[in-house]
């Protein structure tokens, strides 16, 4: 099997299908390791990874750090809130200062789209994009797609609808790329005001009716309404959004088939998902969290394999 075709994980757009398959195959093996009495492996013991989070994160940061520690890497964490960024330091200066401490890999979450691409062109370290503004969130797409593959055996020909704020969602864009690469059919659903202009160029069509979308799909990936990214109001009220696009048990019971519910978290309970759905057997939300360790594990492992030997 050939190596990853990329040196950094900047976005799913830049990956080949074979890259995604290699990451998944390696993740399968890591899931075995999670069940061993000793869950740590020495693969990255001579690697230092800096997690640079210029935006808040709970799950991503925790699961990345766990994956890095399971791989025996040395990990340093950085959160912009408590750093010199507040004093006006540029991204490049911050990163170069960290690299001067001999860091091999940088995991970057940043509010500006393209921040990780910019870094990869300017610094000598492997870069992982952990979310850049409204652009891409490749590790989330990998774990979502991996969770579908795990539940259904394969992703090919599955019908997935992504519901919610597609306009501001990096998760949606990365998911569309990843699922399409593996041969799935993807559509989106949500208020027209939250749809990006160039949806057609992604090969994706839009449902404005939730019931129709759910009847079409095998899997519904429900996104969080990101109130922090909406400087203007895209819909009249949360209550109205919830009535039109919120998924509750009633609407699932009205379908003549069983569908799987996914959510990248954190859930706004009662807005996009009701509690009885989020906690039901339909939901694989906690499987997604578990795979949120396995897929970064395999990605880091494969990227580290591309670092030249000391």
């Amino acid at each position, binding site marked *: *099997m*050939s*190596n*990853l075709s990329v040196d950094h994980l900047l976005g799913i757009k830049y990956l080949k299908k074979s890259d995604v398959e*290699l990451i998944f*195959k*390696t993740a*399968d*093996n*890591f899931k*075995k*390791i999670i069940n*061993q*009495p*000793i869950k740590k*492996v*020495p*693969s*990255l013991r*001579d690697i230092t990874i800096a997690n640079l989070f210029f935006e808040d994160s709970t799950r991503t940061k925790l699961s990345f750090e766990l994956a890095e520690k399971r*791989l025996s890497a040395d990990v340093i964490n950085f959160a912009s809130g408590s750093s010199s960024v507040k004093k006006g330091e540029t991204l490049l200066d911050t990163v170069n200062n960290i690299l001067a401490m001999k860091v091999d890999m940088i995991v970057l979450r940043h509010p500006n789209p393209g921040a990780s691409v910019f870094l990869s062109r300017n610094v000598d370290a492997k870069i992982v994009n952990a979310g850049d503004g409204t652009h891409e969130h490749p590790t989330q797409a990998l774990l979502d797609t991996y969770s579908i593959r795990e539940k259904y055996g394969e992703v090919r020909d599955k019908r997935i609808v992504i519901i919610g704020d597609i306009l501001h969602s990096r998760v949606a864009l990365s998911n569309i790329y990843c699922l399409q690469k593996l041969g799935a059919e993807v559509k989106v659903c949500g208020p027209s005001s939250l749809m990006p202009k160039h949806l057609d160029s992604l090969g994706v069509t839009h449902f404005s009716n939730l019931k129709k979308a759910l009847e079409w799909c095998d899997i519904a990936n429900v996104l969080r309404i990101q109130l922090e990214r909406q400087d203007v109001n895209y819909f009249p009220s949360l209550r109205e959004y919830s009535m039109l696009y919120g998924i509750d048990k009633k609407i699932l019971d009205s379908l003549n088939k069983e569908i799987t519910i996914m959510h990248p978290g954190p859930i706004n309970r009662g807005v996009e998902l009701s509690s009885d759905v989020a906690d039901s057997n339909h939901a694989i939300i906690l499987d997604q969290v578990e795979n949120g360790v396995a897929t970064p594990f395999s990605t880091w*492992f*494969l990227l*580290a*394999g591309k*670092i*030249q*030997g*000391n």
Partner: protein
Amino acid sequence: MLEEREILNKESIVITIERLCHQLIETHNTFDNTVLIGVQPRGTYLNNRILEKLELIVCNSNIASGNVDISFYRDDLMRRDEPIVPEIMDINISLEGKNVVLIDDVLFTGRSIRSAIDALMTFGRPRSVELLTLIDRRFSRDLPIQPNYVGKVIDAMESEKIIVEWKENTGVDRVLIRKSKQ
């Protein structure tokens, strides 16, 4: 140009495996506290052959066995061109207090066995670990690792390759030495 020479054929492999089995029995008797562990990927074929043969000889069909994947325990992750593609870690028992026999087809630098021992320790603290190998390329070791049971000792140059073929993947059981001519 490549030059190949057969060093073990189908018949001699059968004889060698039978001898190795008897040597194992001398030490492990009924195999009550012994676990045979093949090193993925290629040690698994030899492990299966030995297991089959032992079950016939000692009339025990419950000999514990598994296969260890060393991918995440290797020391050359950043020193190779090809990616490490993991195989299945197939050890479903605790190795605590067991006598483990590691089984691999070729012992060369000893680095795979070092990784395998490291990986084994995550399944408990074995009482002992021994090494069985079909081919021992002595004089090529990077680490102080020696086998306890050897099929055949071969003195080969570092540039020469030993190829072990199994019926399961190439249709024939044989061991070849491949010399590359200048």
